[in-house]
C-alpha cells in the first residue's frame, strides 16, 4: 500500500511530525500489548525475545544489502520461530538451549552488520534499529502499523477460543480436541509480523518491553484473560502516547523514555495490585 496514509489523528494534533510519532506509538503499542498477553501467558517470552532479536538481525542484513529491511526482519523472525522446534529435536538440546543458540547467532549477525555499516559510514540508519526512531517514519509505515494492530485484534477475536485453550495449558488444549499446532504457529507468525513492523519505531533492544510489560501490568489487576486483552493495550497505548508527547516536547529519546515509563507503572502496579492484598472477613 505505498503512499497511502490514513492520517487518523491529524484532526487532534496539528503538527505532522508529532502526529506521525503519536500514531506510530499508538498502533505499535496496541499490537505489541495484545500479542504480549499471549506471549506472557503461554510463557513463550523467551521465544518473543529471540524473535525480536532475529528480526533485528534480519533488518540489519536488509539495510546492509539495501533491500526492504521490514521484509528481511519478518523473514528472520518467522525463520527463527519455526527453527526452534526442529533445532532442539535434531541437536538433542532443550528448547531453552535452542533459543539461547538462536539468540546468540541473531545478536552476532546484527552486531556484525551494524558495526560494518558504521565503518562504511552508514551508521545512523543502523542506530535507528537499535533504539528506535519515531520521527523519520514514512506515512505508509504508519498505515502498515495501523493494519497490523487491526490484524492483531482480529487474530485474537477470531481464534479467541483456541488461544485461551493454549494459554491455559497446551496439553489440556490438545486433549480437548483443539488443533494446537496450527494455531500455535499462526501465533508465532503474527508475533513475527508485529515485531518486524514495530522494530523501526521502538528499536531491537527495547521492543521486548512493549511485548511483556503491558501484559505484566494487566495481570496485576485482572482475574480474567478477556480483561487482560482489554487492559493491556489500553495501558500500553496510554503510556506510549504519553511517552511520545513528553519525549517530543522535551527533546528526549522517545522509545527509551517510554520504556522507563512502562517500568515505573509496572512497579506501581505491583504495589497497588489487589491480588497481593490479604483480606480477612469476619463471618
Amino acid at each position, binding site marked *: 500500500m505505498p503512499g497511502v496514509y490514513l492520517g487518523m489523528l491529524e484532526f487532534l494534533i496539528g503538527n505532522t511530525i508529532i502526529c506521525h510519532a503519536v500514531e506510530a506509538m499508538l498502533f505499535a503499542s496496541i499490537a505489541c500489548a495484545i500479542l504480549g498477553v499471549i506471549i506472557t*501467558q503461554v510463557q513463550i517470552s523467551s521465544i518473543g525475545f529471540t524473535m525480536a532479536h532475529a528480526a533485528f538481525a534480519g533488518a540489519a542484513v536488509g539495510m546492509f544489502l539495501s533491500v526492504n529491511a521490514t521484509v528481511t526482519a519478518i523473514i528472520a523472525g518467522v525463520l527463527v520461530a519455526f527453527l526452534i522446534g526442529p533445532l532442539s*529435536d535434531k541437536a538433542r538440546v532443550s528448547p531453552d538451549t535452542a533459543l539461547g543458540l538462536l539468540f546468540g547467532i541473531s545478536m552476532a549477525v546484527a552486531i556484525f552488520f551494524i558495526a560494518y555499516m558504521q565503518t562504511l559510514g552508514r551508521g545512523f540508519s543502523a542506530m535507528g534499529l537499535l533504539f528506535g526512531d519515531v520521527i523519520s517514519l514514512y506515512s505508509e509505515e504508519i498505515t502498515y502499523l495501523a493494519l497490523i494492530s487491526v490484524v492483531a485484534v482480529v487474530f485474537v477475536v477470531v481464534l479467541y477460543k483456541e488461544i485461551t485453550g493454549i494459554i*491455559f495449558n497446551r496439553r*489440556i488444549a490438545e486433549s480437548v480436541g*483443539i488443533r494446537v499446532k496450527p494455531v500455535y504457529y499462526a501465533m508465532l507468525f503474527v508475533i513475527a509480523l508485529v515485531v518486524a513492523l514495530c522494530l523501526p519505531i521502538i528499536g531491537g533492544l527495547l521492543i521486548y518491553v512493549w511485548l511483556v510489560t503491558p501484559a505484566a501490568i494487566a495481570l496485576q489487576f485482572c*482475574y480474567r484473560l478477556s480483561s*487482560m486483552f482489554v487492559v493491556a493495550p489500553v495501558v500500553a497505548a496510554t503510556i506510549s502516547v504519553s511517552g511520545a508527547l513528553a519525549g517530543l516536547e522535551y527533546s528526549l529519546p522517545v522509545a527509551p523514555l517510554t520504556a522507563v515509563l512502562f517500568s515505573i507503572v509496572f512497579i506501581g502496579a505491583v504495589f497497588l495490585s489487589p491480588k497481593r492484598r490479604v483480606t480477612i472477613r469476619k463471618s
Partner: protein
Amino acid sequence: MTVSDPVIRLENIYTAYEGADRPTLADISLSIGKGEFVVIGGPNGAGKTTLLETINGMLPITHGTAVVCGQNVRGDGVHVRCRVGYLLQNFTFDPLTPFTVEEVVLMGRFGMIGLFRKPGREDYEAVEKALQLLGIQNIATRPIGQLSGGQQQKVLLAQNLARNPEVLLLDEPFSNLDMFARESINALLAQLVGSGITVVIVSHAFDDLPDRPVRVVVMHDGKISLDRECHPAEVGQVIRNAGSVPRDA
C-alpha cells in the same frame, strides 16, 4: 480378553517417543467394550500413561491399528479427542492463572465447537450440568488458581464431562483428593459407567471402587502382562500379584 463391538480397539500397537531407541509400548492389543470399568496398573514407567495418550491420539502410533469410538486414531486424533475425555496426571495451577472455573470447564467443549465458532447455549448448559455433577457450581466464578488441589482436580474432571464423552480416560484422578472427595468421585464414576460411558483409569488408590466387576489390565515394560476381570475389593491384590509375573508371561 475379547469384547464384541468394542469402543476401544488396539491391534499390535507400537508407540515410541521421538529420539527413543526402543518403543514405549510394544505389541499392545486391547479391546474395551461400552460401559466397561477398566483399571490399569503396573509399576512406574510401565507405559500406563503412554497407553492412555495412545488411545486418545496424543502420541503418534508407529505401528498397528487403533480404532476408538469408531474412528481411526492415526488419521483422526482430533475428532477422537472430541469424544474422549482425558484427565491428565498431577495438574495444579498458579494462583495468578487468569481463568475462572466456568471458563475452564467450557474449554472442554472447544474442540467439538470447532474453529471460528463461538460457544452457544447448548455449550453453556453442558457446563452447568458438569458443574452440578461434580457439586462445584458454588465456585463457578472463582479463579482456578485460588482453589485447593482437590477442587482443581474436580474442575478438570468437570471439563472432561462437559463434552459428554463416550470414553473417559483418567490418569491418577485421586492424587489430590481427600477421602470424602474420593468417595464422591467413585460414586460419580459408578453412575457414569452405569449410563454406558467406558471408564479407563490409571490409579494406585483402589479403595471404594464402584461395586461392579472391574477389569484389571497390568502393564510391565510397555507390554500387557495381565488382563482379567475381578471383584473391586481384589483389584489391589491382583495388581500386586501380577508384579511378580515375568515380562513375557
